[in-house]
């Protein structure tokens, strides 16, 4: 049942009640902040408050969570105090109760991220960090801490009807060419003015590398920074014209104009993608038109450091836990910001200072237990001893390290029971291959009672720690916290960090599962209007959409919903839902193309009627700020779209090079052939043993080109064995060579015409006769032993063997094997 709650301008009514609504508030559906524990603020700068005590618990909560963090002179307390009198005086030092009253005018406890305090610092108003988003996140965390006590419940998602907008024609990079980019933008401007920093080879190398010599690399980096439909809104232009970032010609407006003209020229080469008028399509939305669906519900009660990598540029990953001091990490080496929050380490690291890192030492030693939590995407499963999260001093000294070895996570931890290097490590079982090159939630916990544990994707995957729990008395506070490498840069881990958090308590399995279920990254609810198609006011298809990585979007949780609870549609058919992007259906990733549903109010749950469990990944084109999505349907209500199927592949055969028309016999054929032409049973022990030992040395394919000398050697060995058995068996030999006397001395046995008694049976049986494709009978016979009266064949085989003094049977076997192991039997 949808919770609809009226609150000020936005209606807050329970679904099912009468009344036309355009707003729905959904409680606790994946986005609310339900943390009730106070964040750890043990190292906030000390305040010198000596005014009246907090009048209520809520004032006390405000003081602990917010005031203590902002009252210092280098924060809000520098101005919004009772002496400077900058209103509202929510950081005044004289009376915490008055500060509390003032703070209530600029804080929204039901939606902390919507607080005035957050939006002010988020737009750069005296943000104490270089990234105003990081200040906003930290301020949000503080207010959430306060709200955790005050609100007593989770944040609620507000579904507001988006402005109805038809999918517009737009320009897509699918129709743009790299060559035009190179000629019109890359060559004239980017490599000329930006290559001092924005290339991988620059001494001042700075991501993104849109000025890289390699046009493909530059093009990929530049795409999100050029707005083809509105060049003036391109990030390149704004960065020059409004943010005065390294302009040239001493005029930022001129530089911006030049950049805009170049992008315009490039955009002019890209044809408009016109939406197919026959499509049955919803209204269109960009991600930024959606409602934020993430940000809360993580268990953060003992969180002492948090990196969400939201910045998207620069060289700092901010610790936005709100727990001072922030361990802001300096990115160095080869790294890239990852679309949808994250940073990818290619060959670098993100390291904090030892002084800031000391926070971990201090807060963890205080509790004696801790948790490392990370959302990571290992780049591969081939790296070893690759440090993912480490608090260490080099290869030989660490307080803790979570690292990758092939398919395993290893957890090294220094205690009184382990070495100063944290050995022996606790590892996930190798056979389980739990580490995959996919987005994973990995949590490593340590407590003196349970020792070390590793959870992957919410499940405990390690056995009991074989090392007893010890104390952390040996921990050093001079180490540095580092991601993606060892502090000495000798333990590179390649992969992507989406989120890293440190807690100074052991998260329970339930808390770990809770954080896993929340997921990572920024998610939005998009409401695709379909009321005009099905004639149901405020009817939408809702999707949760996130930027999946730098190259794609993830669509999940499709629901049918009406924001006006008086609308109770029923029995509306929906078939073949597809996701459109920038005027055309996405060419790939259409997971809902086979959807077949009937839309009915009776199926409504919290978010409406669920339509599918599966998600869809579709490619990113221009970037999350610019890509415009819509939905299409093969059938929705009464409207249909007749989709044509792609035609079957037509394969045009091509001629192959002429191949040999003959080949050699293969192993079993050779054996069977030898058995057939010698009459020896292939099961005969000597023959069989020889064959089995030679089987894999014989030819395995028929191609003459693949015939090797080693094959011939094996054939010879087998032939000799067959002939040996044939001739040594008196009965068999007598039947095969009728009339030949093997017991005579060699000279007599092979005298004159006697030779034919050996040669003729061999040649006839092995070569056949009357076959034109076989060698000439006389040639073979003469080579083997025929003696003419004029002595033209003095060096035939038999004579040569006779001259060597060989015995009758030996000569016979030699002659036999010469024929049997030759081409006359081998070639087919």
């Amino acid at each position, binding site marked *: 049942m949808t919770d609809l709650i009226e609150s000020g301008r936005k209606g807050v009514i329970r679904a099912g009640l009468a009344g036309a609504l355009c707003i729905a508030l959904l409680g606790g559906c994946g986005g609310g902040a339900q943390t009730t524990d106070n964040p750890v603020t043990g190292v906030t700068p000390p305040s010198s408050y000596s005014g009246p005590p907090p009048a209520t618990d809520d004032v006390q909560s405000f003081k602990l969570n917010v005031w203590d963090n902002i009252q210092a002179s280098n924060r809000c307390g520098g101005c919004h105090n009772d002496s400077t009198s900058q209103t509202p005086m929510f950081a005044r030092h004289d009376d915490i109760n008055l500060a509390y009253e003032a703070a209530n005018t600029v804080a929204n406890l039901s939606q902390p991220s919507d607080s005035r305090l957050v939006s002010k610092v988020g737009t750069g108003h005296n943000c104490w960090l270089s990234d105003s988003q990081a200040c906003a996140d930290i301020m949000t965390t503080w207010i959430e801490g306060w709200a955790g006590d005050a609100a007593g419940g989770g944040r609620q998602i507000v579904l507001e009807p988006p402005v109805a907008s038809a999918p517009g024609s737009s320009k897509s990079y699918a129709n743009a060419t790299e060559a035009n980019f190179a000629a019109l933008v890359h060559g004239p401007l980017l490599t000329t003015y930006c290559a001092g920093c924005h290339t991988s080879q620059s001494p001042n190398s700075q991501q993104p590398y849109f000025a890289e010599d390699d046009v493909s690399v530059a093009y990929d980096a530049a795409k999100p920074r050029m707005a083809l439909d509105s060049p003036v809104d391109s990030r390149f232009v704004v960065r020059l014209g409004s943010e005065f970032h390294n302009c040239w010609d001493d005029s930022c407006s001129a530089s911006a104009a030049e950049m805009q003209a170049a992008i315009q020229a490039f955009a002019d080469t890209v044809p408009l993608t016109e939406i197919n008028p026959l499509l049955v399509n919803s209204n269109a939305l960009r991600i930024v038109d959606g409602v934020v669906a993430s940000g809360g519900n993580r268990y953060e009660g003992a969180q002492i450091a948090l990196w969400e990598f939201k910045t998207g540029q620069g060289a700092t990953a901010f610790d936005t836990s709100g727990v001072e001091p922030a361990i802001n990490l300096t990115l160095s080496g080869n790294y890239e910001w990852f679309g949808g929050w994250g940073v990818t380490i290619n060959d670098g690291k993100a390291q904090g200072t030892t002084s800031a890192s000391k926070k971990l030492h201090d807060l963890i030693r205080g509790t004696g237990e801790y948790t490392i939590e990370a959302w990571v995407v290992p780049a591969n499963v081939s790296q070893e001893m690759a440090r993912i999260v480490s608090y260490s001093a080099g290869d030989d000294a660490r307080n803790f390290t979570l690292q990758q070895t092939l398919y395993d996570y290893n957890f090294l931890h220094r205690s009184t029971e382990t070495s100063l290097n944290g050995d022996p490590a606790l590892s996930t079982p190798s056979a389980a291959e739990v580490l995959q090159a996919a987005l994973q939630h990995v949590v490593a916990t340590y407590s003196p009672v349970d020792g070390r544990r590793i959870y992957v994707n919410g499940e405990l995957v390690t056995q009991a720690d074989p090392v007893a729990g010890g104390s952390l008395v040996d921990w050093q506070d001079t180490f540095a916290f580092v991601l993606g490498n060892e502090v000495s840069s000798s333990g590179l881990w390649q992969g992507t960090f989406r989120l890293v958090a440190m807690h100074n308590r052991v998260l329970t399995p339930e808390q770990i599962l809770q954080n896993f279920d929340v997921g990572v990254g920024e998610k939005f609810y998009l409401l695709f209007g379909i009321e005009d198609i099905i004639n149901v006011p405020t009817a939408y298809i809702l999707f949760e959409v996130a930027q999946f990585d730098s190259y794609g979007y993830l669509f999940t949780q499709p629901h049918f919903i009406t924001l006006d609870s008086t609308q109770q549609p029923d029995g509306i058919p929906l078939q073949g839902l597809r996701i459109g992007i920038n005027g055309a259906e996405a060419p790939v990733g259409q997971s809902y193309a086979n959807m077949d549903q009937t839309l009915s109010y009776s199926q409504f749950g919290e978010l409406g009627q669920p339509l599918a469990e*599966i998600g869809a990944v*579709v490619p990113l084109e221009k970037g999350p700020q610019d890509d415009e999505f819509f939905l299409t349907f093969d059938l929705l209500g009464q409207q249909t779209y007749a989709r044509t199927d792609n035609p079957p592949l037509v394969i045009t055969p091509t001629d192959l090079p002429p191949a040999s028309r*003959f080949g050699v016999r293969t192993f079993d054929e050779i054996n069977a052939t030898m058995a057939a032409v010698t009459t020896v049973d292939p099961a005969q022990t000597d023959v069989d043993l020889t064959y089995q030992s030679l089987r894999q040395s014989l030819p395995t394919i028929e191609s003459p080109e693949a015939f090797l000398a080693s094959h011939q050697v094996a054939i010879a060995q087998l032939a000799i064995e067959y002939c040996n058995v044939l001739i040594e068996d008196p009965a068999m030999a007598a039947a095969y060579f009728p009339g030949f006397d093997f017991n005579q001395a060699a000279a007599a046995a092979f005298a004159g015409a006697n030779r034919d008694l050996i040669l003729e049976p061999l040649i006839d049986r092995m070569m056949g006769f009357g076959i034109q494709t076989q060698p000439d009978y006389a040639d073979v016979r003469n*080579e083997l032993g025929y003696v003419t009266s004029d002595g033209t064949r003095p060096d035939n085989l038999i004579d040569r063997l006779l001259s060597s003094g060989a015995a009758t049977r030996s000569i016979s076997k030699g002659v036999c094997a*010469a024929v049997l192991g*030759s081409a006359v039997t081998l070639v087919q």
Partner: protein
Amino acid sequence: MKDRTRKGSLGAGHRTFVAGLTQLFAVGILSAALALPATAGPREQAKRIHDRLAGVPPSASVLDTMEAEVDPFRAGTALDAAFTAMENPNFYNVTLKNFAAPWTNRERSVFVPLNDYIATVVGMIRDDVPFNTLLSADLVYVGNGSLGLPPYSSSNNNHYAEMEQRQIDMMSELSPTAQSAVSGLPSNATAGVMTTRAAAEAFFVAGTNRAMFRFTLLNHMCNDLEQVHDVNLPPDRIRQDVARSPGGDSRLFLNNCIGCHNGMDPLAQAFAYYNFNVDTGSIEYTPGQVQPKYFNNEDNFPFGFRTPDDRWDNYWRAGQNQFLGWDNSLPGSGSGAKSLGDELGNSAAFASCQVRKVFQAVCLRPPQDAADRTQVDQMVMSFTSSGYLMKQVFAETAVYCMGD
């Protein structure tokens, strides 16, 4: 007295070859001749037919018979000669055995012990069992009971190993029996050679059962997944274990992985109840219970497809892979391996694949020009229209490649 008048001279080239071989005579070996220019008459054609089909040269009397059958001026036909050659046991014990052996293991090695997969292929061809049931029949071939072999076992290969070790003649000693009668599988869970013990041991072991599909595609449809790669099909049935952003880059998935998995996963779902249990050494079938391997690495992409049953759907009936030629009289979906075997076995690609494999085995080359392709097309037509008889394909191919 034997007639030697027809032993022809092979000309200068041959004499050179023979002279060269003299060196090897010193050790009593006549080496191989690899170039034999000659014009083939009926006798040579008959020998080649025999060589290619039986793997061994014909005896003198068989050669005479076959020569007469091949000779256009004498009684009989060349096809008769081919069938005569196939009466040689080595057609079954050597040619067919090695024809099928590579299909039964992942390495596609021919050096594997005789097994029930190979024996069933040999038996089906011997008995003219319609070969389009190869992937669906409740059938397995075993050694005759009188041989005293260890009985067929679903947990070991001893029956066939001993048959091979004793060099039992498969032409005369193989008998058909219902697979369900000896393997313990219900009849409706049998799927021809796919559910033989050898196939299970090779392709249902560990993994995700996609191997059974991929190797069946490779061995019996003559296409690997690269040839059926189509990124345009809906990916709604791709399981959770396929990372959608491998190493953090969804382009890999959207350009590569998706193109095979979108079609393969909904087809391989047919094997959802099968496994090869390495502990018992036998195939495992769990009707109604999807094997755990279908949920391996389910967190790689939680929004992927979770297999609920063994229903399969042939997405390749749409889009470019229609070129595989599916049988329009079949529904293109079903439950379990048997109906999937029907789907595959009655496709044009299956028939064409069998003919092409025979062509390669007999002609020792793939079809290489228009004449070869026309011949293959004709043989496919003949194969599909006259009961999927493999011996006929062997015979027609041997005659086509008997030389001229």
